[in-house]
């Protein structure tokens, strides 16, 4: 899922300082699962903001809403009748949701309350670890199901580097070396031949904004181009 962290309170407060009436919109999917921007977090942030602004004698009126998914047009539609009443919108979704919201209401300032940090697994309640940088050319087949692009601090395709230290990465003793893990897993599977050949330089696909067209729907979505 996509994970993110709520921005520091002071930063959010600063962003909102010139507004008196704000709609705070959460998202009920990934960002809610990682306890950052769901219904509950919207309420908490609103309460904190209300309190702070009251103390500053600059009261603010805050609306609360939480859509099922901010990255989906059909769920954003339910906001159409209410945004008119607000000066700006604060979004507690991931970067994707925030942008889709801004795109739907181009005349309104849409402000982020979340710092999106990646595609992560749920290790335990409140503990998420990044696993994929969505590079568009997955190499997991020959790296034992461990992503070197994300988990190696240098994103090496032919690791490990000389800094690996008793299984840890050179950047931090608590950070496992991805290439050490790759080696161990492939050795266990007797598949070390996967990494004896040199992996050629990656042809980076993520240097332009990527659009994905499902082959079944190409006609519907891009009839003039394809």
């Amino acid at each position, binding site marked *: 899922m996509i994970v993110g962290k709520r921005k520091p309170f002071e930063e959010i407060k600063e962003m909102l300082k010139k507004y008196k009436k704000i709609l705070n919109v959460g998202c009920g999917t990934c960002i809610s699962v990682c306890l950052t921007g769901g219904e509950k977090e919207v309420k908490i942030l609103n309460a904190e903001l209300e309190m702070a602004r009251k103390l500053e004698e600059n009261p603010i009126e805050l609306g609360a809403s939480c859509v099922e998914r901010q990255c989906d047009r059909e769920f954003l539609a339910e906001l159409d009748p209410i945004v008119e009443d607000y000066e700006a919108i604060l979004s507690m979704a991931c970067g994707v949701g925030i942008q889709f919201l801004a795109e739907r209401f181009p005349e309104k300032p849409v402000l982020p309350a979340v710092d999106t940090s990646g595609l992560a697994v749920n290790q335990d309640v409140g503990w998420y670890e990044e696993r994929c940088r969505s590079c568009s050319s997955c190499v997991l087949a020959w790296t034992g199901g461990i992503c070197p692009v994300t988990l190696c601090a*240098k994103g090496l395709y*032919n690791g*490990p*580097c000389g*800094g690996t230290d008793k299984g840890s990465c050179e950047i931090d003793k608590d950070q496992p*070396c991805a290439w*050490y893990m790759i080696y161990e897993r492939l050795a266990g599977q007797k598949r070390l031949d996967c990494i004896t050949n040199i992996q*050629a*330089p990656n042809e980076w696909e993520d240097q332009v904004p990527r659009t994905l067209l499902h082959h079944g729907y190409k006609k519907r979505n891009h009839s003039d181009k394809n």
Partner: protein
Amino acid sequence: MKSGSNLEKILKAGHFAFTGELGPPRGTSAEEVRKKAAHLKGKVDAVNITDNQTAVVRMASWAACIILIQEGLEPNYQMVCRDRNRLAMQADILGAYAHGIRNMLCLSGDHCKFGDHPHAKGVFDIDSMQLIQMVKKMRDEGKFLSGSELEEPPKIFIGAAANPFADPFEWRVHRLAKKINAGVDFIQSQCIYNMEKFQEWIKQSNEMGLTEKVYILAGVTPMKSVGMAKYMKNNVPGMDVPDEIINRLKGVDKKKQGDEGIKIACEQIEQFKEMKGVSGVHLMAIEWEHKVPEITERAKVLPRPQVD
């Protein structure tokens, strides 16, 4: 001859090579480079010029290399993958060759986290293995990485690093084999303190026939003090410093520790001279360039051979 560099000639002629190292200044002083170079002149076959070593900004490696050439020394141009993409790398290689640079050392580079700009974006467009391949392609095929032709290919003697002490140990010799397949001509190893482990690695390399395909220069850094030894042991990732080295330094008077460090280094060098599969020594006397004349004298590696 692949490049005709002095280092290549010496190794090809079967001499025991001896290379040094110089870190460019954190500023614009060509004079500082010249001063350091003066200590190394005539004492080593080539001088590695580090590239933003430990991720700290310094004068560009190629620029300091040019100053060395002006001073009559042969540089070994270090290039890390951390700071530039494939376009910048190829451009720098062309420029470096145009200025007379003939040796290169291809490295991944320390992570930015260690340096003076810890939040800089690490580039790593390609890795050290791919960099070796790229230089070889430019040299031998006269082609850029993209496959398009380049005029007057850069004839570079291609080097890389190897750390026999990093984990997993069993993989290290295979990693060396990979670098050889990528096209490396010579290897300069990480600083060696654990002689036993190094010998084991060399033995495996001999058995796999790797030392016949590549020249291996053993890395030596004399310890200046007990403090330095402890720091290297505990804080430098991938460094293997056995307690016996620390105890030996502790065993002498504080003022004599540097001398003892040089003594240990010289004993190691004697062993390397006899070690099958080792073609030379790479001396990394970090901020100790002025000691190189003394070290080379005591290590009995002078005068340096002349090969035409």
